[in-house]
């Protein structure tokens, strides 16, 4: 059977990652599976695990009181769900719901935070991979905010 380390190594997020770092991360990882409609996490929950999607689709939702949740992004194969685990107070600021059957690798956040503190090379590698994703998402949000398609 394929080890978690092999699966992680093939995920685009870890492209070019050192083998030793891969082993450290794999030590915090587990396989997870979400049925269509199941929540990976909800707003306010402790951000104690984030996810690398292997197959499927996950919707990021924000709740407006008195209204149905608004989906503002979907993420798919090769993408990463969740960044709040990086920053105190380590609580989710949005909800993530599987739109279809989704298989992912869950990474224990406290475990990985501890390893990043202990080995700043690993921490820096993780940051170098997370930051571009966050910047891309910020850019995308800006474009969404401009609401370019309608009558202005």
């Amino acid at each position, binding site marked *: 059977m394929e080890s978690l380390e092999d699966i992680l190594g093939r995920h685009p997020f870890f492209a070019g990652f050192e083998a030793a770092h891969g082993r450290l991360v794999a030590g915090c990882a587990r396989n997870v599976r979400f049925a269509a409609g199941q929540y990976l996490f909800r707003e306010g929950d402790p951000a104690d695990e984030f996810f690398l999607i292997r197959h499927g*689709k996950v*919707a*990021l*939702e924000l709740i407006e009181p008195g209204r*149905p*949740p*608004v*989906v*503002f*992004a*979907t993420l*798919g*194969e*090769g993408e990463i769900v969740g960044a709040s685990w990086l920053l105190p107070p380590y609580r989710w600021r949005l909800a993530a*719901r599987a*739109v*279809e059957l989704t298989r992912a690798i869950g990474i224990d956040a406290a475990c990985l935070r501890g390893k990043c503190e202990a080995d700043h090379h690993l921490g820096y590698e993780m940051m170098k991979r997370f930051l571009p994703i966050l910047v*891309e998402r910020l*850019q*995308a949000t800006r*474009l*969404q905010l*401009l*609401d*370019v*398609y*309608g*009558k*202005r």
Partner: protein
Amino acid sequence: MAAPDPFLPQPWRVERRRRELIGAVTLELAPLAGERPDFLPGQFNMLYVFGVGEVAISLSGDAERGTAFVHTVRNVGAVSGALTRLEVGASIGVRGPFGSGWPLAEAEGADVLLVAGGLGLAPLRPAVYALLARRERYGRVVIMVGSRSPEDILYRRELEHWRRRSDLEVLLTVDHADADWRGHVGVVPALIPHAGLDPVETLALVCGPEVMMRFTANALLAAGIRPERIHLSMERNMKCAVAQCGHCQFGPFFVCREGPVLRYDRIAGILAVPEI
């Protein structure tokens, strides 16, 4: 028959009118005299609502079929609003077709990626018909469409029909949706890294609001597509449409003559200059 004076609107009649979205309609126009001139996918006409004014509107129908000019118009102001309110039987003035078309000959042998934002799908639709008419000449054909919400997707039924074809890949994304929407949510450039494009083989045709096209071009470059393989359809204000008045000037180009379809490498330097 001598070609009509390009400055002189010819009388055409609204044959059919279909409401597409809130504030957007498709008009089919028939000539009151003679036949519909040929046009290339990507070209536009000047439509004149008598007593109101004239605006540039892309051709959105099949260049190789039918006898009408098909135009999809969104109400954003006086003239486009009057166009969307025209009833069947009304007459309007038409000049055109004008401008350059999509580089479909250059696309032969290549994979073709079409990226549309909002009403930008209208000028790309004739290109889709042309690609399908000679499907065997092209590699993969991928259509990406971004809209504000599921209710704002233009030509939705036709897109669904295309999606069921095995020789087209259609990816829809919306800026936001409720939980019932099962498709993608997010901006259209975010789809590009996941399409598995072969950067050397792909030629990209992009149409939408300028800011969306800039983001899309950046994502295409990041995916390894060369700037000279990216083509954008620019919508700049038109007046004469025959390279006389300078209204549509965009750096060294007159969009009415060299455009509206322009190669990205030729315009990249001026695309983000606010004064141009």
